[in-house]
């Protein structure tokens, strides 16, 4: 490779008129002008690379920022919050000196192009985020959405995504304790691959992404840097370089979970010896992001010798090295006298580590290439002063017609036989069917702390072996509800995740989210986004669960057609003693089944309307967050005081879906009686929110119903755990075997 002209800062100063490919790098004219204004000259190629990637939608949140601010502005007062939005991940206090960090991110687009690697590197990225906070990752979750279950492309995408999540997560030794699998034609050309991770640390071990202390060394460690994920910058490279090496830069990143496992253990040992002053994972925008964020969170000054970065591909240009998204890398700031020990630990774990620079007195991020300065910027201007858009938004014209297309007008089953048939059809439908074929490809036992995992309402892991302290997490999102009403849809997602955590016996503490939407340039989509964020922020305020962080994924659409607005909400809860957890299984014959909450005729966006009528219209179920809170308190008290042996939240598919799952899980049947004032159809299929079904030992019946009565929560006895079938008295019965076949055969039938 012969360098034609290295575009140094000096060179840029002397060639103000040089044409620059800002457009090809996705910058707008005014954005380019602003960069010139910030620098007082034209940017160098390397600077242009950094600004363009850091000011992209993905990294700068330029379309979503103005809406996300509500999460801070409306944040409920919470004693639990230790680190809020803005860091790699938020941190909450879970008691006994422990802190928990958790976050959900998307890897949607890469997973459509290369399902295995796209999903795998999605897991890798979120795990490094959690690690960078100082925490040991203890569990992962994976909310997934695919196109129609029977579409041929789903057969390509889903097995690849699942194998990728399993292949990466299993190899890291992180139990997969939850997630979702949803099928809908709207995700056909744009699957949603979200991944979440939970990490645990002691309060004093919280680490922040911050480069302070002039003289401290900046160490890049982990994998070598290759040309991954820098397609766009080759434009730049070809402008300033005459390349004789491989010109091709891979469009997809390939992950190495083994390398990541070493990175985790190595980093934890480094934390254990308190060797780092600041740390940042490398994810999107690679070194551009890590250096500018570390520097701007500190006093600002940093000097980096870019040619010291260990490379996998010697032909990479400095611009490319700055933008490379090679996986399994971290960046640490280390005091000089601790560098030797830092290096020793890296060597122990076979991890390559290199001092690439140091923190300086000034307030500029300066990057050098073989002694010549190629970057000289105020780091904050790269990391945080990106553009902010106030994109226009407007309620779509079709919204009224959609809401007017009321699901309650749909023909309902007229006979007991028809009801029975529709129950079977519902529990066998891809969205309601057992996902064991998928979740059995994930290790849920590793680390030996898994208390609850799929198909329980929430995943739960023990975090202290002595005290039995544990944390629980559930993720939920219902794009159908959100399409009908994004404000309510976001709140319903929140309510469902909250309910799931409470049903497991844990107290909901905090929220992370992954907001998956279409193009922000479409005012209709932007309205959906605005409504959903407003709904979520209002909902979190009401429930007292602050949003600690999250992720926005926009441009999820095929051509002009956007996906359903899909806010995915993760709720984290804490439980003082995991032996008090409540499983979903109905296991004891004779236990009484109680339905908590109110059941109304609510079918808009329901599973029934989809499965039986392929219909989406009307309004989603009404939201009552005070009721959710009360229900949660009752479920938690009942679990703590041993009043219930099983609980299952009611959501899509309604009561019959929940009872089926609990019966199949426990291997016991149930006799159900339709309560006064309800018709059988509504009783079985309604999706009214704020409900759960619980199994109460007879000895606890009075105590439990008294508690509900005293607290004002509607409680209705609906049957008993009994026999080998689910019987709806006076109507029909279905043997557990038949239900099991219907429920469990669907997914393998489609995919195996």
């Amino acid at each position, binding site marked *: 490779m012969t360098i034609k002209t290295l575009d140094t800062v000096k060179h840029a100063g002397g060639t103000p008129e040089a044409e620059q490919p800002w457009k090809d790098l996705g910058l707008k004219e005014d954005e380019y002008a602003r960069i010139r204004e910030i620098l007082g000259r034209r940017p160098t190629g390397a600077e242009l690379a950094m600004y363009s990637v850091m000011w992209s939608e993905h990294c700068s949140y330029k379309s979503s920022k103005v809406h996300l601010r509500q999460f801070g502005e409306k944040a409920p007062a919470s004693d639990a919050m230790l680190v809020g939005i803005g860091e790699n991940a938020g941190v909450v206090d879970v008691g006994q000196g422990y802190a928990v960090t958790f976050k959900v991110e998307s890897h949607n687009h890469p997973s459509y*192009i*290369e399902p295995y*690697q796209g999903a795998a590197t999605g897991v890798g990225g979120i795990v490094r985020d959690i690690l960078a906070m100082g925490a040991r990752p203890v569990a992962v979750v994976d909310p997934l959405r695919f196109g129609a279950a029977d579409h041929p492309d789903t057969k390509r995408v889903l097995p690849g995504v699942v194998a990728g999540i399993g292949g990466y997560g299993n190899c890291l030794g992180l139990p997969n304790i939850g997630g979702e699998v949803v099928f809908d034609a709207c995700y056909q050309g744009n699957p949603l691959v979200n991944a979440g991770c939970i990490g645990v640390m002691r309060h004093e071990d919280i680490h922040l992404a911050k480069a302070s202390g002039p003289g401290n060394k900046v160490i890049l460690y982990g*994998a070598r840097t*290759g*040309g*991954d994920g820098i397609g766009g910058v080759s434009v730049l490279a070809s402008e300033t370089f005459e390349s004789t090496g*491989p010109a*091709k*830069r*891979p*469009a*997809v*990143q*390939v992950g*190495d979970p*083994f*390398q990541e496992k070493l990175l985790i253990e190595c980093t934890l040992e480094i934390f254990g010896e308190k060797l780092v002053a600041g740390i940042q994972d490398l994810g999107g925008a690679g070194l551009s992001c890590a250096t500018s964020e570390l520097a701007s969170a500190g006093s600002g000054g940093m000097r980096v010798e870019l040619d010291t970065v260990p490379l*996998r*591909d010697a032909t990479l240009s400095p611009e490319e090295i700055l933008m490379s998204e*090679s*996986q399994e890398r971290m960046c640490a700031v280390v005091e000089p006298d601790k560098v030797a020990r830092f290096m020793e630990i890296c060597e122990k774990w*076979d991890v390559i580590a290199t001092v690439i620079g140091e923190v300086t007195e000034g307030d500029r991020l300066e990057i050098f290439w073989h002694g010549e300065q190629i970057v000289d910027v105020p780091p904050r201007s790269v990391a945080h002063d990106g553009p902010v858009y106030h994109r226009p938004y407007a309620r779509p014209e079709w919204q009224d017609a959609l809401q007017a297309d009321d699901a309650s007008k749909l023909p309902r089953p007229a006979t007991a036989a028809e009801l029975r048939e529709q129950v079977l059809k519902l529990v066998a439908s891809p969205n309601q069917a057992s996902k064991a074929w998928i979740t059995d490809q994930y290790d849920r036992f590793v680390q030996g702390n898994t208390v609850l995992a799929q198909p329980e309402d929430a995943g739960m892991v023990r975090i202290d072996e002595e005290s039995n302290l544990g944390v629980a997490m559930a993720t939920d999102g219902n794009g159908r509800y959100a399409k009908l009403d994004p404000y309510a849809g976001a709140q319903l997602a929140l309510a469902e995740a909250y309910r799931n955590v409470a049903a497991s016996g844990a107290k909901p503490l905090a929220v992370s989210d992954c907001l998956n939407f279409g193009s922000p340039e479409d005012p209709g989509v932007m309205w959906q986004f605005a409504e959903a964020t407003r709904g979520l922020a209002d909902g979190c305020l009401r429930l007292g669960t602050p949003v600690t962080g999250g992720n926005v994924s926009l441009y999820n659409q095929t051509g002009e057609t956007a996906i359903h607005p899909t806010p995915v909400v993760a709720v984290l809860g804490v439980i003082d003693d995991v032996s008090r957890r409540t499983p979903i299984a109905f296991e004891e014959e004779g236990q009484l089944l109680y339905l908590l909450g109110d059941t109304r005729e609510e079918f808009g966006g329901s599973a029934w309307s989809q499965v039986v009528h392929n219909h989406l219209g009307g309004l989603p179920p009404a939201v009552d967050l005070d009721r959710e809170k009360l229900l949660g308190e009752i479920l938690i008290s009942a679990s703590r005081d041993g009043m219930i042996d099983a609980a299952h939240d009611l959501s899509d598919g309604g009561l019959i879906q929940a009872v089926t799952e609990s019966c199949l899980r426990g291997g016991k049947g149930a006799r159900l009686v339709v309560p006064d004032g309800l018709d059988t159809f509504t009783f079985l299929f309604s999706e009214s929110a704020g409900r759960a079904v619980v199994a109460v030992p007879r000895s606890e019946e009075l105590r439990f119903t008294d508690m509900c009565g005293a607290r004002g929560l509607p409680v209705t006895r609906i049957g008993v755990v009994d026999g080998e079938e689910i019987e709806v008295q006076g109507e029909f019965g279905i043997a557990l075997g038949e239900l099991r076949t219907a429920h469990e055969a669907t997914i393998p039938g489609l995919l195996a």
Partner: protein
Amino acid sequence: MARVVVDVMLKPEILDPQGQAVQRALPRLGFDGIADVRQGKRFELEVAEPVDAAALARIHEMAETFLANTVIEDFIVKVEEA
């Protein structure tokens, strides 16, 4: 019966963690002088009909659309003497 072999290798610019792991292990086992290791897949296809140009073209298509993931992999098709 003829044998057609399809060799599928990761593209050179794509990270090959398997090959790297093998390479790193070699010196420890006392094997030096190996500068690089790449690990790929080898498919041996037993073809019932004679492998004429048309058959080869079909196998090529099969390799391109199915045996290899051309987003990250290259392949070559070779007819082996029976």
